C-alpha cells in the first residue's frame, strides 16, 4: 500500500502542486505567492513538493541536506514559520483529498492511510521547522554582526580634522563602541576638531543625546573639540522639545557646513584655484 501511495502521488504530482499553489495563494498575510514572478513560484512549489515526498518510501529517510537547502531559501524569501506550517498542512490535505477522489483511499483502507499519513508528515514537519529555526537564528546573528560592522569609525579627513558618521540605531552597546573609537581615534589621528555626523541616526532620544554629550565631554578632555553635524530639522525640533541643552556644542545642519567651520577653527579655508 505504501507503494500504491507513492505511485499515485507521483502520477498526480502536477495536479497536487496546482491545487496546493491555489490554496497557498488564498492564505492571508503572505505575499510570496502574489508578488514573486510565476516561474519562481512554480520552481519553489516543485521543490517543496519534492521535499514533501522525499521520505515517503519507508526505505528513504529524510534528506537533511535537502531540507536545509530549502529552508535557507524560504527564510530568505521571508516565509513566516506559521506559513511554512500551513504549507505542510495544505500539502498533506491536498494529497489526501486527491487520493480520495481517485479512489486510492477508500472507506476500507482509510484507517491505514491515516496512520501512513501521520508517519509521513510528522517527522517531516519536525525536521523542516527545526531547520527553519536554525536558519532563522543564523540569519539574525549574521545581521547583528553586519550591524556591528556598521558601527562608528573615525575617519581622518584633513590634518587635525576627523569625522565620525553615525548610521543607524544607537543602542547601549554601540554607544560604548562609539565612545571607544572616538577617543582612540582622536588621539591616534591627532585630531583637533571632531565632527559627529548624525544624519543617519533615525531617532535622537534622551539616551542618544546623553551619549553624544558624554562623548563630546570626553573628546574635550583629550584636548579636541567636538562638533555635532547633520541635524535634520525635525531632529532639531525634538531635541528642543526634550529640553536638551546643546549650547556647549558647536552644531551645524550639514556636514559640509561643519567642515567649513572646522577648517576655520584650525585657521584654514578652501580656496578655488583657477584652471590653467
Amino acid at each position, binding site marked *: 500500500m505504501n507503494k500504491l501511495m507513492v505511485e499515485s502521488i507521483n502520477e498526480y504530482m502536477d495536479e497536487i502542486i496546482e491545487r496546493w499553489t491555489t490554496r497557498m495563494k488564498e492564505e492571508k498575510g503572505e505575499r510570496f505567492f502574489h508578488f514573486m514572478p510565476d516561474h519562481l513560484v512554480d520552481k519553489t512549489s516543485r521543490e517543496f513538493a519534492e521535499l514533501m515526498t522525499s521520505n515517503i518510501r519507508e526505505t528513504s529517510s529524510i534528506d537533511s541536506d535537502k531540507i536545509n537547502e530549502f529552508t535557507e531559501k524560504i527564510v530568505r524569501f521571508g516565509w513566516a514559520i506559521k506559513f511554512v506550517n500551513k504549507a505542510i498542512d495544505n500539502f498533506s490535505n491536498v494529497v489526501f483529498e486527491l487520493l480520495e477522489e481517485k479512489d486510492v483511499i477508500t472507506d476500507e483502507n482509510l484507517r491505514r492511510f491515516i496512520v501512513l499519513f501521520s508517519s509521513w508528515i510528522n517527522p517531516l514537519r519536525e525536521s523542516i521547522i527545526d531547520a527553519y529555526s536554525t536558519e532563522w537564528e543564523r540569519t539574525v546573528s549574521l545581521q547583528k554582526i553586519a550591524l556591528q560592522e556598521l558601527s562608528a569609525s573615525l575617519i581622518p579627513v584633513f590634518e587635525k580634522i576627523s569625522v565620525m558618521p553615525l548610521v543607524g540605531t544607537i543602542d547601549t552597546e554601540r554607544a560604548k563602541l562609539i565612545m571607544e573609537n572616538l577617543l582612540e581615534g582622536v588621539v591616534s589621528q591627532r585630531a583637533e576638531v571632531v565632527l559627529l555626523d548624525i544624519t543617519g541616526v533615525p*531617532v535622537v532620544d534622551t539616551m542618544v543625546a546623553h551619549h553624544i554629550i558624554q562623548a563630546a565631554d570626553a573628546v574635550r578632555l583629550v584636548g579636541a573639540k567636538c562638533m555635532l553635524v547633520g541635524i535634520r530639522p525635525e531632529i532639531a525640533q525634538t531635541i528642543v522639545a*526634550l529640553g536638551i541643552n546643546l549650547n556647549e556644542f558647536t552644531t551645524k545642519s550639514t556636514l559640509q557646513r561643519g567642515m567649513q567651520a572646522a577648517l576655520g577653527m584650525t585657521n584654514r579655508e578652501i580656496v578655488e584655484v583657477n584652471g590653467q
Partner: protein
Amino acid sequence: MNLGSSVEIITEWDIVAARQLGRNEAKQVGFGTVDQARITTAISELARNIYLYAGKGKIEIERISEAGLVGIKIIASDEGPGIPDLRKVMEDGFTTSGGLGAGMPGVKRLMDEFKVISEVGEGTTIITTKWLH
C-alpha cells in the same frame, strides 16, 4: 473607530520595534515628518523607561478619531515598581539612573495630551495622545 497594535518591551531591541510601529502608524494617520519624529521619540522614551525601570511591559499604539479629529494614542504600561513622586519625575533633570532626566517632561512637551497613572508596587501606565492638526 479604534485601530491598534502593540509591542512587548523585554529587550532593548523591542524599543526599536515599538518605534518602528509608531512611525508607521503615524505615517498612515497622515502626520508630517516633524510630528512623526515627535511621536517616534516619545515612544522611544516611554519604551526605554519601561526597559530600564520596570524590566518589561508593553507599548500599545492606537489610531483614534474623535469629533472630526484624528490622532494617535500611545499607552505605555508596566507592572514595575511604580513612581513614588509623580511631580518630581515631571521636573526637568530628575533622574534616578544618572540619565538626563529629560524623558518624561520631554514626552509631555512632544505630545498634546499626557497622563500618568502609577502606584508604588503595582506599576505604571502612561497615556499620551497627539492630534493631527
